[in-house]
């Protein structure tokens, strides 16, 4: 069935290092993917998205890579800061409605920043 999942439940990195969070998806028909950041006790915050016709997209300190061959998505955070500590989710649209009928979320990766 359709699913979006994460390889690692927890990722611990040193402050200042780069972080890479991975996500595997199974729905080849998904035309875009989204990364969210969720801090403790708060709602998910949109970080960046990527359309399926792209391989890479960059934002401020973040880069998302899409490998459609192996159905793999990654989020790279440059120069990780204490404020980056959070759970990160990848998500894809449910069904074929372009997202109007909701998103399917992965289980999340908890990013821990060590001083």
């Amino acid at each position, binding site marked *: 069935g359709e699913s979006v999942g994460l390889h690692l439940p927890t990722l611990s990195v040193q402050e200042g290092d780069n972080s890479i969070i991975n996500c595997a998806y199974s729905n080849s028909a998904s035309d875009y993917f989204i990364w969210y950041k969720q801090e403790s006790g708060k709602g998910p915050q949109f970080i960046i998205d990527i359309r399926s016709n792209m391989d890479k997209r960059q934002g401020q300190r973040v880069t998302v890579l899409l490998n459609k061959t192996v159905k793999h998505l990654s989020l790279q955070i440059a120069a990780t800061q204490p404020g980056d500590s959070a759970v990160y989710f990848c998500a894809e649209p449910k069904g074929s409605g372009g997202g109007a009928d909701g*998103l399917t979320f992965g*289980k999340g990766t908890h990013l821990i920043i060590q001083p």
Partner: protein
Amino acid sequence: SQTIHQWPATLVQPVGSPLSLECTVEGTSNPNLYWYRQAAGRGLQLLFYSVGIGQISSEVPQNLSASRPQDRQFILSSKKLLLSDSGFYLCAWSVLFEQFFGPGTRLTVL
């Protein structure tokens, strides 16, 4: 700019009591609206979505219901809460692809 509000922020309710959670969106018209639930340490599960006033689609069978009485208002309800209804309830809106989430309501059923 668009903003989304949810209330209450936290709620403690006894088993068997009713529930009403409210979500409102400002700064946009005719948004798609969503209710998600998040169990502790877990991902988000879509409960309901709405593409217009009075139009509700349910994703999972349960003792919860949703209503959309106005364009930018989305309500999650229950007649009798169960222990398993405890969780973090999130409302979200979208116009195109990205969904934007509210601050959430932490519900504890005792």
